[in-house]
């Protein structure tokens, strides 16, 4: 019994995480046409899909890390990012008939616009709704965040109505870029990973090396001490919301291109997955948020393809519970002020 307990505490989490891929890998290899390509294809789609959740999750984790607030409106900022993106590229005339260079150029401008819009929106939310409640009981900003989530959902509802709105497949999603041994890389995979990786690296560098980044880390550790050291805590917090919002804007653009539809309620599900990713990775930790996002993307793809999409939410949250049981602080979580 002692041996089993020791084994589980050491390797239980790894076993739990690998359970689904191992099960289907074995199933594929013992099937009629033994090949690991179907599983690898699921994982490729999972990584690209998970990249979107990762970018949103970073926004959750940044805000939680610095003011210990679960910003429930963050998923809806991501939704506004998608809506802004599709509206802007339509406004500047990027359509299916536009040349490849035109589409690339138009989408790069759209990316900047979506990031600026969502960053600004997030800063405004912080300024209007959270800053006045800085010293209020923790429940006050939490319920305010829920309130802002509903307000943004209603903005989306007024903007494009209650149904899912189809948008142009500008990147020709589903087109193959290349394949290796039956594992196909599509355009949407390249887009999602190709945008997420540099943005997250840039964010990490900014936080680790810039003056404002250091101020953010100092504020996250101890806001009072940071204030005494001359750091403008309010500006630092605003900067955190700006960065989180910008990533949500980028994720919104990728989502619209990846799914080729937008919906006023997409932020609820996306936000829930991203928040779960942040908790799974260890809330307050950027690398943890990215890892959590990718794990959730992979579980989601395997579940959607192999088990059935109606079970996906339950499976994802089942995984979260397992991880919390083995590592309550998340996969690579650190002790927060609250926990410490």
């Amino acid at each position, binding site marked *: 019994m002692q041996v089993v307990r020791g084994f589980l505490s050491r390797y239980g989490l790894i076993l739990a995480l690998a359970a689904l891929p191992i099960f289907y890998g074995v199933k594929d290899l013992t099937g009629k046409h033994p090949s690991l390509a179907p599983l690898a294809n699921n994982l490729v789609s999972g990584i690209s899909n998970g990249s979107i959740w990762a970018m949103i999750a970073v926004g959750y984790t940044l805000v939680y890390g610095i003011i210990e607030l679960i910003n429930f409106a963050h998923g809806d900022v991501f939704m506004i990012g998608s809506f802004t993106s599709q509206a802007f590229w339509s406004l500047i005339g990027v359509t*299916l008939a536009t040349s490849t260079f035109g589409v690339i150029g138009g989408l790069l401008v759209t990316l900047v616009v979506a990031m600026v819009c969502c960053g600004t929106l997030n800063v405004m939310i912080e300024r209007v709704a959270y800053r006045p409640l800085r010293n209020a009981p923790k429940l006050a900003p939490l319920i305010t965040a829920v309130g802002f989530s509903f307000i943004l959902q209603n903005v989306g509802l007024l903007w494009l109505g*209650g*149904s899912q709105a*189809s948008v142009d*497949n500008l990147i020709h999603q589903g087109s193959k870029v290349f394949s290796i041994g039956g594992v196909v890389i599509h355009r949407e995979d390249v887009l999602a990973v190709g945008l997420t990786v540099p943005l997250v690296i840039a964010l990490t560098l900014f936080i680790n090396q810039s003056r404002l980044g250091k101020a953010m880390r100092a504020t996250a550790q101890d806001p009072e001490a940071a204030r005494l050291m001359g750091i403008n805590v309010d500006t630092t917090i605003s900067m955190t919301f700006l960065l989180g919002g910008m990533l949500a804007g980028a994720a919104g653009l990728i989502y619209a291109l990846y799914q*080729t*539809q937008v919906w006023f309620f997409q932020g609820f599900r996306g936000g829930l997955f991203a928040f779960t990713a942040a908790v799974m990775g260890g809330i307050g930790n950027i690398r943890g948020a990215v890892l959590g996002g990718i794990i959730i993307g992979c579980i989601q793809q395997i579940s959607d393809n192999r088990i059935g999409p109606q079970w996906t939410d339950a499976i994802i949250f089942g995984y979260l519970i397992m991880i919390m049981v083995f590592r309550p602080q998340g996969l690579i979580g650190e002790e927060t002020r609250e926990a410490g």
Partner: protein
Amino acid sequence: MRARQFGVAACIAVLSLGAAACGSSKKKSSAGSSTTSSGGTVDIYSSLPLQGASKDQTGAMVKGIQLALKEAKSKAGQFTVNYQSLDDSTAQAGSWDPGQTATDARKAVQDSKAVYYIGEFNSGASVVSIPILNQAGIPQVSPANTYPGLTTSGPGTVAGEPDKYYPTGKRTYLRIVPQDRIQAAALLTTMKGDGCTKVAIANDKETYGAGLARLVELQSKAAGVNVVDNTGIEKTAPNFRSYASTVKGKGADCFLFSGVTANGAAQINKDVAAAIPTVKLYGPDGTCESGFTNPAKHGIPATLGKAFKCTVATQDLKAYPGGQKFLASFKAAYGDANPDPYAIYGYEAMKLGLDTIAGLGAKGNDKTAVLAALFATKARSSVLGTYGFDKNGDTTLTDYGLYTFGPDGNPAFSKTIKQGG
């Protein structure tokens, strides 16, 4: 700080008052035309989803209803008619909502002058409203429902239908569109004619979508069409790529989405077409509308539109017996020479009610008499042609129209599909 807080509070108060004002103005405008006279009044309601993907169709229906009322000068025999257009949808759902549908039906039930109820547009919504109206004995006529289980038992329905919708044991529901047994046959005839060898069906799991999919599957063998898959989808899923790859693996060369536009129709068609570029796409009347076919309204892209065909109970409006006259009147009233085909069903639903009430003379305000007269309707000469109702409340009309992607992005009438043809 206090001044700032006061400012925020004042802003919220102003916004709330603005929202309240908008809400109340909408309520007033929904009342429609209404006059009273000493000859007595009767109340007629319509309950349709006026928001979301079907709003073009239902907006046209309401205009058709109002046109019929205007032509009758708001009179039905000796009675003045008060008409109220109710909305069974919510903005959040983007489609019909069970709670809102029940609220609409209860509003009519609480009105002692209510003698006629036009609705619902969605069969699933009628599942909610029929029992409520049935208990009050209010005659209900649907201008759009096609699910067979609302009126009949047998293939394509579920156990207990239709009796479970009529708690009094007496029928109170009729419809002026042919039901889905005929639509399923029309779809299969089209698919067979187009050379489909393996058909994949996805349904939206609603009463209408799942029921029609069941019927197509049941009738496919007799029609000589091979259905390789019939799956209920999660309508809010962000994409259906795994489903598309599954049906591709089954060798499907034709795809039918059985459901309404609001339930993921555009996305699933796009995903299936991306996985199987040569696939032929089909849809029933739930997707045979501009919200699905028109890219400008966030429908499917024009490239897919060319591969899409759909069936709807309406024919070429000009070909109807009173079609030309109806179109001229519609244009004169609304300035629209090319209304959604469902406009004529709204028009006929109201005209049927007005004629029935007028035909009863002094008993026109008696809902029991109106109900009996409706069921007794045989060989009625109308803009839809000559029709009557059987004992179940089903119309004797049987033709379906085939529509393709028109040059303006909207469905365009192609040809009539005769029952058994």
